[in-house]
């Protein structure tokens, strides 16, 4: 493989409408167990990407704001050093990777993750027999006692890379096969995925533009210094306070 890749995503909060298309796309692609009613009531529902909704103000001067939250694939990920068995580690492409068959379920990582994006299988996942036909054969079904989380759809990255090599071409920026499932689903183009080592990729250009002085880019809970590979772009609002950005 020529050169190194480093995967990153941008999330334009100003575009996000909270429609949940990404959530279900992720569940479909990654064999996420069905979150039935008891799981929600136990606060154990699994959504590798979830939409958080925040209220601001009260009727009639009220706002509801949406933001998608998922693994930030931090360069200095707080979840990694605490894993006693190296089940969670950083790979050469900047991904925070979870090795399921190393995981012993200590749950130290979820305890240390400030973004609360790691999900633990408290129960053995179950699907009725006919629904098992929809399971993606490229993705492991995790069993009880295993931690799981967003992988940036590593199976798609692998498959696309392999097919590109087979066909003697480079992986193209914005390839639908490379994009994580949530990115393809998002109807408003809130999510952009790509290789930040490639200066011509959309994500690199967005990073350069929006992380500059008058850009809208920020890191989620940036003060924690986790070095996320996900860049959020600020919501635009005429009622904004603080420093003005275009």
């Amino acid at each position: 493989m020529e050169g190194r890749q480093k995967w990153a995503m941008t999330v334009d909060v100003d575009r996000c409408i909270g429609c949940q298309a990404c959530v279900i796309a992720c569940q479909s692609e990654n064999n996420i167990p069905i979150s039935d009613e008891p799981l929600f009531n136990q606060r154990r529902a699994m959504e590798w990407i979830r939409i958080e909704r925040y209220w601001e103000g009260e009727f009639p001067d009220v706002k509801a704001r949406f933001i998608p939250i998922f693994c930030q694939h931090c360069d200095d990920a707080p979840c990694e050093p605490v894993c006693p068995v190296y089940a969670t580690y950083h790979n050469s492409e900047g991904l925070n990777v979870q090795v399921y068959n190393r995981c012993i379920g200590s749950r130290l990582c979820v305890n240390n993750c400030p973004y609360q994006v790691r999900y633990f299988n408290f129960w053995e996942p179950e699907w009725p027999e006919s629904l098992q036909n929809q399971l993606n054969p490229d993705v492991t079904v995790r069993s009880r006692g295993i931690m799981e989380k967003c992988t940036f759809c590593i199976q798609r990255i692998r498959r696309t890379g392999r097919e590109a090599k087979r066909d003697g071409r480079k992986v193209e920026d914005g390839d639908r096969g490379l994009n994580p499932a949530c990115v393809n689903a998002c109807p408003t183009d809130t999510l952009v995925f790509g290789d930040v080592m490639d200066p011509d990729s959309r994500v690199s250009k967005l990073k350069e533009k929006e992380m500059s002085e008058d850009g809208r880019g920020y890191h989620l809970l940036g003060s924690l210094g986790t070095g996320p590979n996900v860049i959020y772009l600020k919501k635009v609002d005429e009622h904004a306070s603080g420093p003005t950005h275009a």
Partner: protein
Amino acid sequence: MGVLGGSAAGAVLFQACGVPEEELLVEAPLQMPEDLVSGVDNWYATVCRQCPTGEGVVVRVIEGRAKKVEGNVDYPVNMGKHSARCEAGLQSLYDPDRISAPLLRTGERGAGQWEEVSWTDAITRLAHQLSETADPEQVVMVTEPLSAHLGMVAERFASKYGARHVPYEPLERTTLRASIEQVFGQERMPDFDIENASYLLSFGADFLNTWVSPVRYARGFGQLRQGGMERGTFVQVDSRLSMSAANADEWIHVNPGREGLLALSIAQVIVSDPALRRLADEAGIRALTDGDDSRLGAFAPDLVAGAISGAVSAERMAETIRRTASDFVHHQPSLAIGGGPAGAHTNGLFTLNAVYSLNRIVGNVGKPGGVIPNPPPPLEGVPSRPAVASFEDWRNLAGDMRGGRVRALLVRGADPMYGLPEALGFRAASYDVPFIFSFSSRMDDTTAMADLVLPSHAPLEDWGSDVPDPGPGHQVVGYQQPVVRPFFEQRGVHLGTKGFGDILLSLAHLLELDLEIPGATFMDVVKEGSRQLMGRGSAPFSTYSSFPAFWNGLLRHGGWWDTGAKHDGPIPPPPPLPAEAEIPQFSGPEGEGTFYLAPFASASLTDGRGAHLPWLQATPDPLSTATWRTWAEINLKKAREMDIEEGDVVRLETAHGSIEALAYPHPGISPEVVAVPIGQGHRAGGRYAEGRGANVLSVLSPSLTDAAGSLAWAANRVKVTKTGRWERLPKMENSKPDLAVDEHRLIIPLAQRDR
């Protein structure tokens, strides 16, 4: 079948035999499926049938099983985007409670006792009943609105046999269509060019969520926000903080049914202020005022502001109206859309006509960022738009059923026993119908009452075509192909499922009806019907030299389109605006503890058709984040006054019955409104839907809007009382305690607007 983006199968197989070099990249000496080549996947293009919009999708198929649904990048309606509902098409294919063979009722009607029979037996029984019927008018076909070739086959069958065809559209758009017809002279729904608009004003239409063509509109909305040089503005006028309202730069709260009054007031400001009028379209204004500038005098902001919103002061509302009117003409291209609850009051047509007339004031019809009329479909012989029955037709049908004037009901893709208000008595009247035949693939509420079930294929197993309504402003035909072999094929030729088109064709054959359609199977009908498109359309469709190649191309691309074939012809001038307001009427209790009832289509279950799919049940509602249950949104302060907390089981009593729901108090709803999602409360529907939550549609009063006898489903009032019970509301909110509040905007910081 056409393969989209065909891959070199040989090369994949070759590589699958060895260990790919990239394995060295993996730092763990552990192999997971993610690191292995696991077989050849193909993506087939088809049309999503999970909701009436009909998005173009591609489906990933591995070893004969469908694995993933994504948007079809080529398809002009949704351009690669899709919704959670499209994605769940997989689960309707592999639904564990799907009906896998024809079923004959053995117990009492509705008791759920069935015996499997063979297809030959089932079709013979059906044909026998139809040929025995002396008066074919006593046979009624109830379907979803059917477009293109299936619509043609159903229409022909009904007319040749002599049956009545009553297409069922839950949350009908009859009022909306009537308004489009009156204001723009268009028979078909136009496209709304949200992408290129600078200012979008929506009245009640939850267009980002469930309204008309939500994926297309959401895509346009993303572009409106950050796709151009300048960020577009979006203002929502609504009686409830809907998902669309939550995404607006400004939500203007109005009392239910007063949206039209607000629109007329905006029109009055523009017409009477020369500085604004100069920027507007004079011809449009003249038509709308009938040449009389004082016509709208009664709608001056100061006169009507008090009636529009009781929740904010009249002065503030009048100021808002003036500002909105000024913005609407200053930030052109501007666009006004309306629908949903705004069109579902007793003055719905008055409201929508006022809303859509705003477009004529700025003269945006046919212009970028405006209302783009759609051309008629390119196919000859197919209905130009799906036929739809109004609520009045249903009332008549229920009456006929009660009077013994209906001998058989043939139901497909429609669930009127769930969706029609109980006050109509449709369900009770069905006991007076000797035979009910259902062609549903799942045990919905109507099918549970059937005598014989002839189960249809799931959409991903069936052929079909679609003329999207609304289209994208040019001619499009979607082609639906089976992406997998029928799942119940292994049950043998006598059992399993069949396509509805094929069932009708074999029925016509048995009854010796000549439908005058070429083709022995429904696939032939679709295929032969596409011949007339050959040599036409955009590239590559115009370039194929042989029909097999052309047909293959249609399936590869999931459709046919001609970006040059747009609407042409004049747009008639709009009718004059009314000089007097129509006051909305409400039925139901008044006084202490009563509210306006705002039913809304659930984001994932829509009108209830998604309730049997676990993904959609588990999809959090955008605003409440609630799942799996029916909840009632109530104002936080009001709830405190009434001592109601989240999870309290409350009884909601209308003039026609009562339902129970879990209270969800939040700060975003008016203290005068209680909102309840539509979609739950099924009597049947399999393990995920049955007996879950409550059906708010069932307790609505059967009052009508002022157009074409459409149901005024937003015109109800409701009394809310505590039952004393409490149940946990399953929701996503607060399941992650650390991120539950964002008081200091650490999570969603804001950037200021640049204008």
